[in-house]
């Protein structure tokens, strides 16, 4: 809502500087987003063209003598529309103007034009910053005061208000005046609504039928005959221009003016084009059509509330009028509609037809039905004044949905309970009265309050309390800390687990990323390398095809993030994300398991002295998962797996406590690396944190420190290529005196027979009850070897 200070001042006295008023209104709940000062016109005055002479040295220029009241000045002027006697805007040297051609800011300097001194300039609208028009000079109305500062005569300040959905009253100059009055302690002068009717009784001219009081609680109408359609007077045009509304003709301009003044949308019909003197407010029939003012034929539905005559629809209620009953040059009788429509009905129609308007914006915010009559009176009065019409005797006022605002009982203790501030009863009363409320004292500390007719948002105690607080200013409420008991808290272990995982991985050198929950099917499919199952949840009307559905896996997004970064740098990159995936569940909200996905890759070798030289591989990935799980205190083992997104034979399922599969890890399938344009060696791990959560209890196990010394032995065995480390280690660990077996070398090559490999272990032997002797250890060692030979065909590597 754009509101002119000049217009506002007609209803309320304002002594504050505009910027201070803007701050006050903002603090009270309606943000003044912008304060525009029109006419920073120093050194520009109202003048009158007294004499026009030809320029001695230029055919296209003329010399004008301008009368400024106290003196005459001469200027050189090239404008075509110079007329003796016209009032104009004269700028002296030093005036800040805009260049008439480039629009840049300039400071006017005295100058000689073709040898003649020009003492200033007669300004165009563009030079004054009023419009883009620079063809001719601005001609002021004949009553413009000669010699006055143009800023005093034409300057204004425009407040641009961002009105919240609860305050339709702030979409009106009068509403803003009431707000200003409450905030500054001034009083409002409401406009006079009187007019003298001179026509026949309105009931002879029109009848109105409302079919649904819910959809149309009130319908008021007035008729003005003998109007002369024409251009609006300057004050009317200026008022509309200040609010950003285009002038059309005097009748339409008056309806818009009153809408801006009262916040009540009006519509003017050409009375002679309403059939059979009857208006019916009803729902349209499915398939009914009408052509709206913009010339578009609209198909109506059974949900569309319309204004109709007995023959056809003549307007879409609260949204737009129809072309057949439009006020045109030939119109002589006007029916003015001032009605109240159900907000949701107007909203739905406006959305369905994609026709938001100034009118629908007000109806949607639920304006009060009480506004309809005063606004109508004002419009009729102005039409008589401006368009020279005669008002019919009486006004139509159908009010089947009448609901008077109920009085609310407000107590000082309730004010104190909500605000935490003692507001004296007298101040409560004064504040509410300043807002236009009717306040009746019920007792020393309680009131009955009725909101003013222009406010639709004051219904509950809390609403009035907010108004008291915002008029007093929130700064008057003290700052206190919560004094009640701290409630019991239920543990939320996922928070701790997530934080642990993130910190451990960051410690390992992984960078955390956050990717969008919305993705597209191709990305999901590429990441999984399999058809999507389940089918992800789709967005009803996606904003773009890249964000069409909810992810069922983190893989695609994280790999895409990796691919984007690998193009920018060489070396190893480790990324991870923890986040939800969304698995559809029939008839219910989706399940949202928390997943962890890490990706590792490298290109070339890190170009850093002593940096990592080997390419990233499976064992980096496994090491990360092992390290993470060790940090979380969860025992895991790894078994061969068959995830289609990973390379067969280079992937493993992550199993916790020998039974819970909580994820997979491995080298990406070549189709996946190709799809994302990633290096072949790129690896991934994926852990379902929901499965991990009950296992990662953080319970610590304590083992007493050993009392007897350990004995270390190395053992290198040769086995077939097909034998795995885990098979060997399981046998070794089966011997009770073996405390630890650590693999330290794997070798296959010239020194062992083809088809074989050698694995070397560092074994730690220890007993809980005595010091081991060499003989004892040797005995166990040969038993281990024998068992390895028997079960795996292993031989000692010598």
């Amino acid at each position, binding site marked *: 809502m754009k509101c002119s200070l000049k217009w506002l001042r007609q209803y309320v006295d304002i002594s504050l500087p505009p910027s201070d008023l803007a701050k006050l209104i903002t603090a009270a709940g309606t943000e003044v987003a912008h304060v525009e000062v029109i006419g920073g016109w120093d050194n520009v005055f109202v003048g009158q063209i007294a004499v026009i002479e030809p320029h001695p040295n230029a055919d296209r220029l003329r010399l004008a003598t301008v009368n400024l009241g106290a003196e005459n000045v001469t200027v050189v002027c090239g404008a075509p529309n110079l007329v003796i006697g016209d009032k104009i805007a004269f700028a002296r040297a030093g005036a800040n103007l805009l260049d008439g051609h480039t629009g840049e800011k300039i400071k006017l300097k005295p100058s000689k034009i073709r040898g003649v001194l020009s003492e200033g300039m007669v300004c165009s609208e563009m030079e004054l910053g009023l419009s883009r028009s620079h063809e001719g000079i601005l001609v002021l109305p004949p009553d413009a005061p000669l010699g006055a500062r143009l800023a005093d005569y034409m300057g204004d300040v425009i407040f641009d208000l961002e009105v919240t959905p609860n305050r339709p009253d702030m979409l009106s100059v009068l509403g803003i005046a009431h707000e200003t009055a409450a905030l500054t302690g001034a009083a409002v002068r409401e406009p006079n609504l009187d007019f003298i009717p001179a026509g026949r009784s309105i009931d002879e001219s029109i009848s109105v039928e409302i079919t649904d009081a819910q959809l149309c609680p009130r319908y008021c109408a007035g008729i003005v005959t003998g109007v002369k359609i024409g251009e609006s007077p300057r004050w009317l045009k200026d008022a509309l221009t200040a609010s950003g509304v285009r002038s059309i003709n005097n009748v339409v301009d008056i309806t818009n003016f009153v809408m801006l003044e009262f916040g009540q949308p009006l519509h003017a019909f050409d009375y002679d084009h309403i059939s059979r003197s009857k208006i019916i407010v009803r729902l349209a029939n499915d398939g009914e059509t009408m052509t709206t003012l913009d010339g578009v034929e609209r198909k109506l539905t059974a949900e569309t509330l319309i204004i109709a005559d007995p023959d056809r629809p003549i307007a879409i209620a609260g949204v737009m009028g129809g072309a057949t009953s439009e006020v045109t040059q030939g119109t002589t009788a006007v029916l003015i509609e001032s009605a109240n429509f159900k907000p949701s009905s107007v909203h739905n129609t406006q959305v369905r037809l994609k026709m938001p308007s100034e009118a629908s914006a007000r109806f949607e915010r639920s304006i009060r039905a009480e506004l309809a009559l005063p606004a109508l009176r004002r419009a009729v009065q102005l039409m008589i004044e401006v368009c020279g019409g005669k008002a019919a005797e009486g006004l139509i006022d159908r009010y089947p949905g009448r609901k008077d605002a109920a009085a609310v009982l407000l107590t000082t203790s309730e004010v104190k309970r909500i605000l935490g501030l003692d507001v004296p009863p007298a101040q409560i009363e004064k504040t509410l009265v300043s807002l236009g409320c009717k306040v009746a004292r019920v007792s020393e500390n309680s009131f009955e309050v009725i909101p003013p007719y222009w406010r639709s948002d004051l219904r509950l105690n809390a609403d009035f309390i907010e108004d008291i607080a915002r008029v007093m200013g929130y700064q008057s409420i003290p700052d206190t800390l919560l004094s009640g008991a701290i409630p019991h808290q239920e543990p939320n272990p996922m928070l701790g687990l997530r934080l642990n995982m993130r910190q451990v991985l960051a410690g390992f050198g992984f960078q955390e990323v956050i990717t969008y929950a919305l993705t597209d099917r191709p990305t999901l499919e590429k990441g999984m390398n399999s058809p999507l199952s389940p089918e992800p949840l789709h967005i009803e009307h996606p904003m773009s095809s890249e964000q069409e559905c909810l992810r069922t896996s983190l893989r695609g997004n994280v790999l895409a993030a990796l691919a984007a970064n690998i193009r920018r740098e060489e070396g190893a990159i480790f990324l991870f994300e923890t986040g939800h995936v969304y698995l559809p569940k029939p008839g219910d909200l989706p399940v*949202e398991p928390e997943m962890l996905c890490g990706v590792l890759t490298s290109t070339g070798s890190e170009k850093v002295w002593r940096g990592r030289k080997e390419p990233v591989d499976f064992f980096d990935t496994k090491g990360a998962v092992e390290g993470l799980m060790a940090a979380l205190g969860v025992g895991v083992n790894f078994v061969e797996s068959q995830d289609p997104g990973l390379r067969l034979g280079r992937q493993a399922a992550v199993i916790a406590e020998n039974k819970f599969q909580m994820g997979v890890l491995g080298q990406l399938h070549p189709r996946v690396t190709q799809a994302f344009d990633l290096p072949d060696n790129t690896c991934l791990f994926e852990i379902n944190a929901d499965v991990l959560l009950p296992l990662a209890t953080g319970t610590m196990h304590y083992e007493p420190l050993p009392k007897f010394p350990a004995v270390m032995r190395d053992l290198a065995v040769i086995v077939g290529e097909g034998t795995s480390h885990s098979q060997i280690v399981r046998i070794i660990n089966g011997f009770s005196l073996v405390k630890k077996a650590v693999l330290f070398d794997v070798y296959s090559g010239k020194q062992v027979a083809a088809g074989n490999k050698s694995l070397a272990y560092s074994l730690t032997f220890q007993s809980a009850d005595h010091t081991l002797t060499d003989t004892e250890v040797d005995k166990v060692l040969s038993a281990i070897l024998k068992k390895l030979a028997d079960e795996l065909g292993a031989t000692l590597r010598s």
Partner: protein
Amino acid sequence: MDIKTQLEELKAKALGELAAGGDGASLEAWRVRYLGKKSQLTEILRSLAGLSIEERKEVGALSNTLKIELDAAFKIAEETLLARAASSADAKDTIDISLPGRPFPRGHLHPVCQALGEISSIFTAMGFQVLEGPEVEWDYYNFDMLNMPKEHPARAATDTFWLDAPPNDAGWKMLLRTHTSPMQVRTMEKNRPPIRIVVPGIVHRYEATDATHLSMFSQIEGLAVDEGISMADLKGTLHEFARRFFGTDRRVRFRCDFFPYVEPGAEMAVECGVCRGDGCRLCGGSGWIEVLGAGMVHPNVLEGVGIDSKKYSGFAFGMGIERIPLLRAGVEDIRLFYGNDLRFLRQF
């Protein structure tokens, strides 16, 4: 020559030799000469046998003192020699300490997660429990129960991602939550006051992405409900949060604002950290930066979950997280947070 004079001469000679310096071998020879079993001092002491008891006492004391003095002098000389030897050895085996250290990989937590964690822990310290809720929600929780019934203008004005899924048996429609506030309702449905929670999480708005808007962003919600909670508590709690998070010297400002699920409603702004209130590009010249929306829980919301609004009252607040690192570090394009460019993320 009496023994005293002999001792004096011995002392002068020994210390003189020591002062002349020498290597390890000459120092060892000196020790044998003056402190060894066959040293001159020993010989002098042996010759005491022929003296009277008084003389023996006197000379004995003198020679003991001398022995202590020579011992001390020897230790100093020995240490000086060792130190000199060590430093000359180091000089031959130095490294270029300006070479870079061996790199340890360092990962970074995402700046949004860092901010969320920090904010959560401030409220935890004030007795708020951290809860999380579903990101896919019913309109019932996202709107209806938050005083935004089907035809409420604020609901219509909230740009929502609706899901292509049938409504449930109750007719509820599925959407991506537009704020973390549904957890207010879910929590109050299950728990009676006193309640103090904060809810961090991802939310979505059907909005074109640009430098200051994202279709997905993070929020943190707060709710406190009990007997006697007032707007003064709201202001005090949020002011305390601002002190702990932005710094004790940053001023805060509350103004009236509208959210359907609170009444009275408020917006909190913090003094701009760059210009300290004078106005700059970051704060759009106002000197203040809007940080969060808040208010007293609307009576309709309390009554909706069966909490007596005459007896209990509460406050709620919600803030967007991306603004925080944005404001702290002066990031000008909010899209960077989810662009996952390592050159950006590594700066946090």
